[in-house]
């Protein structure tokens, strides 16, 4: 009985879908591929909600005479896996643009494949500055954030508010090391001192109390956490447990709203962090989040996910502007068009894309609210300072990007 009913339902659905497929078949198609971590530590910062955000962008973009497909895959945070999926997507599956790609090592690999195939790579999830520096290319845009912007916004603000001596706890791989060294530069430039650093093996560390004790013994005023995800959460939890938070200020150099949710406000309150998007920032971000809420009611987007929305929307505008055939033929031309057009959307507001592929948006410094201050679910941040787009990122001349002609 059940089988017959589902068979009937299935054929009814097929009857509804079939004419639509035929109708769409006549239209030119653009295919967006979201490539991120669906099963590991960065699932919540990108993962399924990044895909939803891209779908939201497609919906908000509306019908401009071409069809848009969204597909996704899990790169497992492995560069070889990411690169081979990218290759297959471009060669066999007709994907035109790859979005998100967190984890710096994977991001660099996918960016290289994209250039080789002359497609488009819109990175939102990775933090390495090399994407717009020594390894920049005409097919890649880094939309949302990078370690320079995080270090400048969070690090600079902490020194200004009196935190002039630092101790870094660093995840011992490219991202952590870059984050700590950029952080140290800003601390020193602002007249502060770095009293020490300890690098721990990533990702094989669970207990950070030894490193926290070393930080405490150093006498530094600020504990700089140059890591991400579960490591940051463990560090903050254990810093509170060992009473560090009474003597030192914590600077989590990369933290997303899902991390704050994972920690709970009781532990996370008072932390300062930087994101380039917050759902409750202004009327436009609230409107965007309300639309997104219909698809994902229990969560709120962080900057990585909202960046996927913003980048996808801008990409589709560029495709509409230059025509689907031209866009499919030459990825570098689409990126050039995207750089030429100003960006404007509900998540990131008005902005631009710089010559080296750097998305230019303000960096917001937030403080995490206390449980008493938080009035509603996901009401987590207080805005403390805004670094304008022009100042938030590494100056063009310092990056060493071969695309930049000065």
């Amino acid at each position, binding site marked *: 009985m059940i089988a017959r009913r589902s068979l009937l339902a299935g054929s009814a659905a097929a009857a509804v879908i079939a004419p639509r497929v035929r109708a769409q078949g006549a239209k030119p198609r653009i295919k967006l591929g979201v490539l991120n971590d669906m*099963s*590991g*530590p*960065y*699932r*919540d*910062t990108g*993962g399924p909600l990044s895909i939803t955000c891209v779908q939201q962008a497609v919906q908000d973009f509306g019908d401009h005479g071409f069809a848009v497909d969204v597909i996704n895959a899990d790169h497992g945070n492995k560069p070889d896996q990411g690169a081979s999926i990218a290759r297959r997507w471009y060669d066999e599956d007709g994907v035109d643009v790859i979005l998100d790609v967190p984890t710096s090592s994977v991001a660099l690999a996918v960016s290289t494949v994209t250039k080789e195939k002359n497609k488009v790579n819109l990175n939102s999830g990775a933090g390495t500055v090399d994407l717009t520096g020594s390894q920049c290319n005409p097919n890649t845009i880094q939309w949302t954030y990078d370690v320079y912007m995080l270090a400048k916004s969070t690090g600079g603000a902490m020194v200004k508010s009196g935190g002039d001596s630092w101790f870094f706890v660093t995840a*011992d791989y490219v991202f952590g090391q870059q984050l700590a060294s950029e952080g140290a530069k800003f601390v020193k430039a602002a007249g502060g001192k770095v009293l020490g650093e*300890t*690098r*721990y*093996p990533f*990702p*094989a*560390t*669970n*207990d950070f*109390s*030894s*490193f926290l*004790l*070393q930080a*405490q*013994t150093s006498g530094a005023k600020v504990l700089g956490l140059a890591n991400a*995800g*579960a490591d940051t*959460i*463990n560090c903050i*939890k*254990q810093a509170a*447990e*060992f*009473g560090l938070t009474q003597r030192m200020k914590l600077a989590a150099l990369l933290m*997303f709203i*899902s*991390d704050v*949710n*994972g*920690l*709970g406000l*009781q*532990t996370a309150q008072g932390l300062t962090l930087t994101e380039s998007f917050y759902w409750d920032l202004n009327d436009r971000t609230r409107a965007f989040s309300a639309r997104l809420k219909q698809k994902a009611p229990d969560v709120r987007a962080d900057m990585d996910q909202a960046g996927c929305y913003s980048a996808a929307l801008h990409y589709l505008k560029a495709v509409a502007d230059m025509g689907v055939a031209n866009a499919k033929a030459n990825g570098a031309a689409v990126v050039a068009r995207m750089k030429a057009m100003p960006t404007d959307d509900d998540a990131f507001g008005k902005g631009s894309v710089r010559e080296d592929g750097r998305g230019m948006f303000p960096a917001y410094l937030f403080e995490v609210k206390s449980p008493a201050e938080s009035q509603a679910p996901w009401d987590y941040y207080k805005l403390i300072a805004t670094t304008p787009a022009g100042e938030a990122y590494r100056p063009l001349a310092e990056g060493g990007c071969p695309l930049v002609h000065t």
Partner: protein
Amino acid sequence: MFMIFGYPVALLFGQLLLGLINGAFYALLSLGLAIIFGMLNIINFAHGALFMVGAFVAWMLQNYLGLDYWWALILSPLIVGAFAVVLEKTVICRLYRIDHLYGLLLTFGLALILEGLFRNEYGSSGLPYRIPQALSGGANLGFMFMPLYRGWVVLVAVVTCLAVWLVIEKTSIGAKLRAATENPGLVQAFGVNVPRMITLTYAAGVALAAFAGVLAAPIYSVNPNMGSNLIIVVFAVVVIGGMGSILGSIVTGFGLGVAEGLTKVFYPQASATVIFVVMVIVLLARPAGLFGKAA
């Protein structure tokens, strides 16, 4: 300030103590593994995942039923232990007569499934679980701030390890268990229900993992990957201690915790590797492990 090898002595004392605390977790987890291996000859790769499930059950009890940490400490091992009974009765019992490799593959597969299910439902960034009110705060020992909760973890771990060791080595149930490992047919002939005993042993080993999970929930991020990082270290502990040796697991767990803690001061980058270096040296010198009996 008094210094040793250029490091303040207070820092070294602190690290020794922290090493002991981490060692308590290693001992508790490797104890469960050693029991399961010793009695069932199964290398339980799902142990880390079951440790994670123990922590999640504590969170669920608190959030869905309003039961606090103390209830979780009792209920979570029981619930996860009951789940282990089902696992043993349905799939693991089929492995006893075939090669070890199948046991390893099956339990590894189970671990991936469990982690995947929890990741799908709860995401990867973890869930908040607070230290119970009665155990929050800490004491200043002069050379470091000692959180009360960590002291509690060490105490509970030591007591549990001793109790398990006593049960297995000094009671009649333990004697039957050990005899059943050596010659199950003969023990069954004496009227002991060996299959039931094996099921309960597996459940007890898993319950220990869940118990460690509840202890870990307030200090580590409660996320689906929390067991997979720890399990490799714990396996090394079991191998160094001697596969299946209860006392070996306990002593090695604490000892390696201290070795790891000191490495974190002198050369932190090597802190994840030091345990494996010890493992290589021990296996070269004593292939059966420190406390293992040569085959």
